[in-house]
């Protein structure tokens, strides 16, 4: 299986503060890959370095075999990737419709049609396209941000902690949405704090510790891994007699 996204030995940080120390990972087409790890492990920095909002100091990123290392973010969009940051991921003073139009800035035709396709799942966004994004709830903003990222039919979607500010019910909806996005053929690389729910829908996962990959396994294996359970899944007792000692 040839990888859609191939990250090799990437290093990144802010100024003299190096945060990501030589991470390699890959994402295959239509795969959901989750990155988990403690705070400060470099998860968000890694996504930024891959997407070009932060220039990696070393290493390479290839998308579909094309070297896209250090391309500015707007050119990554052109190359077929999209990114939903964790916070400030909508344009507050623009309307719902305008937010989506900005997602399609590089598209000339079929904008309205794509908008309708995406909004089918979100009737409360579809009902009032003129509403300013600043008036939306946290869950609606997250949904709008996801739709904005999907306007150009990317093949790879990077998502940074999509459920960070959401209620458990909204979280379930969002993970279901991510699965349905994958079912349309989009590969997803996501950083997530709610590790258990994220790993349940993931094909593979990476555990990041101190800016390096500590572990790479399938979602199932990570869920069953007692060390991972103790550290990230908040699991003391699985209830089936297995202890996480």
């Amino acid at each position, binding site marked *: 299986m040839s990888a859609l996204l191939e990250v090799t030995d990437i290093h990144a940080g802010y100024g003299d503060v190096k945060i990501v120390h030589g991470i390699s990972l890959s994402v295959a087409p239509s795969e959901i890959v989750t990155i988990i790890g403690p705070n400060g492990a470099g998860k968000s920095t890694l996504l930024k370095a891959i*997407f070009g*909002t932060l220039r990696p100091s070393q290493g390479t990123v290839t998308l579909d075999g094309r070297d896209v290392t250090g391309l*500015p*973010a*707007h050119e990554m*969009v*052109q190359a077929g990737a999209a*990114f939903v*940051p964790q916070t*400030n*991921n*909508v*344009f*507050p*003073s*623009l309307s719902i419709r*305008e937010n989506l*139009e*900005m*997602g399609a*800035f*590089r598209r000339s035709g079929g904008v309205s049609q794509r908008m309708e396709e995406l909004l089918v799942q979100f009737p409360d966004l579809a009902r009032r396209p003129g509403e300013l994004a600043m008036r939306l709830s946290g869950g609606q903003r997250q949904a709008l941000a996801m739709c*904005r*990222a999907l306007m*150009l039919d990317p093949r790879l979607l990077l998502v940074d902690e999509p459920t960070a500010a959401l209620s458990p019910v909204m979280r379930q909806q969002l993970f279901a949405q991510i699965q349905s996005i994958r079912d349309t053929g989009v590969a997803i690389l996501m950083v997530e704090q709610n590790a258990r729910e994220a790993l349940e829908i993931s094909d593979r996962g990476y555990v990041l510790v101190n800016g390096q990959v500590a572990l790479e396994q399938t979602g199932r294996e990570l869920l069953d891994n007692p060390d991972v359970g103790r550290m990230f899944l908040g699991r003391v007792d699985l209830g089936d007699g297995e202890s996480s000692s």
Partner: protein
Amino acid sequence: MTEFAQLLVIGLLVGSVVGLGAMGLTLSFGIMKFANFSHGDMMTLGMFLAFAVVGNWGVRGPVMEPFSIPVGLILGVGFAAVGVAVLAASVDRVVYRRLRRRGSATITMAIASLGIAIMLRAVIQLIWGPLPKRYVTGINPSWRLPGDILIKPDQVLIILLTLLLAVALYLLMYRTRLGKAMRATADNAELADIAGIDTERIRLATWMIAGAFIAVAGVMFAVQAQLRFDAGFEFLLPMFAATILGGIGNPWGALVGGLVVGISQETSTYWIPSGFKHGVPFIILIAMLLTRPRGLFGSTF
């Protein structure tokens, strides 16, 4: 009462020029996130570029009745708008973009713009000299409105042109792809980049629009006043007042803010000595900052 109404007309006129200039200032402030102190001297440059056409090169043609302005000034306005637009974009390429890439603080950018302002003023003085100039000599006879209010055809033209440009800017900002991308960049430049917008190109376009608007404001002012090398600089503080009154980044706010500045300043002379009139808008500004710090219409800053 006639006297007050007359002051109101003058205030409307001054407010139009301030408002038009402030629309460009607030756009660049909202998107670049720093106060451009060279905006006033860009205004002066606009005045003198138009003078280059009608004065230095003598492209005048017949006077367009009932206005006092020669046909050549239309060419002059165009030349000034293009010239200042290109200059503003070039300064961004040479100066501000480097600072941005270095991650400079906004105060660094603002001080750099002050340096540009001083350089511009010196160059203008070098080329056109320290003596005042005029586009036209002779007088523009006033129209007498009901209630014995006097207004010159030139002044009517200035007010109408301001309204026309305000509507044009509105259509640009809310109806075109470029305008929406400018608003998105003002909201969150990093997210705009992530969404696929080349924000550097948006910044260049913003400078060009701001430059063109301030050049037109400068020419409009100079049509019924003298061209002096420091004329634009004197507009800088009123334009900042208008920008802040209306809410930074908000062009309609800037226009209304400009009208508030112009009208309050001119009508105040009905009660107080005219030497104090320039202080009046700032009293209003202070009062507003205390009560509505984000401006009359909200700010994207």
